[in-house]
């Protein structure tokens, strides 16, 4: 077994938290039951990884098989990477039959024809997600296994989730291969980025709870049971409080919000001041960047009005994030008579 492969396996095992190592090795399936039983999983990680490398030597594991362990690790801990969402477009009505083997063949073919030194791995999961791991090299060097790109694609949807590595120069080639393999015509980057892959999926697949008005009251809807407060305490602002709760629920829905870490607004609007003061002598747009960041941005926006920190209803620029499926906005000067300023598509 190559030294580089051994080193790669050792470093990958070191990344995994100690309690998870056994389950991930079992999922990997490259070491037999008897081999796994010879490892003492209570020793320090350094020693565990050495043992694993030793056993892999016996099984002559190659780099492609070692890369599968990396995919398994990233599937369990996807939130360690930043994911961007891309949308593909097709111009005509085509048959909706998705053939997995065809997809894989076309994808590998396209990449390999442009770049000989790549390591490509596929892994399918139960929820129709196809995980693709690509390690990039150059015409003269072997692929760099420590900076792979990950692509998650759900068949028959136009959305692709890409966690690019630092090597951004390979992105156009990757996009081209995806478009070709999935029978689409075009691909563009959406302004939607987050650490939480599942939340990104919830937003674009519309799996998050939106509040729709119906006559039929949903049986599982938990009506807000007011906590048994002291009957001697009378709330003066009860009407206002209830109004805020109702408006908030209409906008955000009842369930948990998708997890985003930031929203960024690039303002290119004119500075509005008293015409007599005339701060700027040149009539130029005032460039400004507003960035909201939070461990869980949408939940914190949802709790702004009930906590009394903002008026309800909250600005639609903030609440449209899941519906417009973007968290990077460019706001320019309003040119037409619309009540909101013009938000670029």
């Amino acid at each position, binding site marked *: 077994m190559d030294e580089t492969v051994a080193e790669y396996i050792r470093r990958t095992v070191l990344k995994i938290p100690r309690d998870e190592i056994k389950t991930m090795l079992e999922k990997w399936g490259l070491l037999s039951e008897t081999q796994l039983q010879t490892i003492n999983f209570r020793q320090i990680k350094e020693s565990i990884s050495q043992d694993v490398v030793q056993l892999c030597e016996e099984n002559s594991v190659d780099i492609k098989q070692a890369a599968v362990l990396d995919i398994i690790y990233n599937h369990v801990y996807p939130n360690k990477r930043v994911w961007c969402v891309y949308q593909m477009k097709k111009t005509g009505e085509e048959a909706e039959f*998705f053939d997995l083997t065809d997809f894989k063949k076309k994808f590998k073919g396209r990449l390999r024809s442009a770049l000989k030194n790549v390591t490509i791995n596929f892994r399918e999961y139960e929820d129709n997600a196809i995980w693709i791991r690509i390690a990039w090299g150059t015409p003269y060097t072997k692929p760099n296994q420590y900076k792979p790109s990950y692509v998650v694609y759900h068949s*028959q949807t136009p*959305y692709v989730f890409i966690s690019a590595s630092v090597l951004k120069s390979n992105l156009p080639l990757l996009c081209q291969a995806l478009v070709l393999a999935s029978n689409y015509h075009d691909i563009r980057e959406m302004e939607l980025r987050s650490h939480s892959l599942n939340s990104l999926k919830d937003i674009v*697949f519309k799996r998050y709870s939106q509040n729709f*008005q*119906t*006559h*039929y*009251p949903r049986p599982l809807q938990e009506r807000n049971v007011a906590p048994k407060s002291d009957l001697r305490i009378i709330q003066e602002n009860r009407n206002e409080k209830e109004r805020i709760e109702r408006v908030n629920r209409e906008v955000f829905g009842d369930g948990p919000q998708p997890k985003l870490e930031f929203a960024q607004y690039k303002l290119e609007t004119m500075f509005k001041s008293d015409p007599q003061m005339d701060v700027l002598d040149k009539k130029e747009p005032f460039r400004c960047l507003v960035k909201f960041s939070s461990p869980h941005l949408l939940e914190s926006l949802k709790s702004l009005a009930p906590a009394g920190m903002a008026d309800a209803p909250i600005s639609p620029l903030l609440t449209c994030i899941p519906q417009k499926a973007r968290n990077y906005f460019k706001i320019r000067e309003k040119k037409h008579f619309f009540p909101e300023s013009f938000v670029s598509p």
Partner: protein
Amino acid sequence: MEEGKRNSAHGVFAHLERLEAEAREIAVKEEKMKQEEEKQARLKARVRELSLQRDMLLAKVRLQKKLREKRAMSDPAKSSARAVLEWKIKNIKGMLQISYLTGISGKQTKQGVCFCISTAYESTYLDSYYVHLLVKPEVQIYQHSVPTFIPLEEIAKKYLQTDIGRFLSVLSDHLNAYAGRKYQADQLQEHFSDQIEGTVQRNSLCNLLVFNYKVSSKSKTFPFNVRLLYGDLCCSLPTEVNVSCTPDAPASLAEMAAAHSDLFRRVALHKAFRSFSSAEESVDGAP
């Protein structure tokens, strides 16, 4: 006490002084506590007084309300018309609530209309999907919870502007068929996993299923491979079925494969599998 004994004259008086001081402190404390208790009792009495007052006022308000209602109801003609109106409103509300059972129901909103499409497959209720439409300046989709692999934009392009009813019914067909296919595939994996070898390869729309399953004949098991293609997206039965067995299998198995292929085309997937297991039982049971 020892100190007192040592300096006899000063000690006793000092001791007495100390005891007096302690007694004074205790008296002061007791006085304070008594005062606080009195204050509490006074406040409690005040609270009781105020709540009695409030109850009296509330009772007065309630009485006035009743009188007003009685006055309104005292007119017999008015009361019966009002009763009829109330009955009508209750009826309509009940109808609107039940309308979701038809599969497509709607509610008027500030911006337009919100439609709810409920899916079901053979007497099992499945998920509901919502489409919120704006009506002016032109009919367009404002918000929806339809999954991305359902061709919503295509259906909207074809029917939304011309015939909203047709748009809803076509969308409902797509959603119901998808829900039905998904239900069959889920049931298969849940109840018949012992007959399936390996994993079931499916896709998001559940319109292409490929898997291997075991068939036992004369106490030997043979693997069958089946490929189910659901060409019509509005249908929950496959349009193309390929059942194949290994080339070295006996001829009777080829007949069985053909029979299975026909069965899959006509009957729901999980029901077909259920009939296999019951057929096997009857075959084994026969002498």
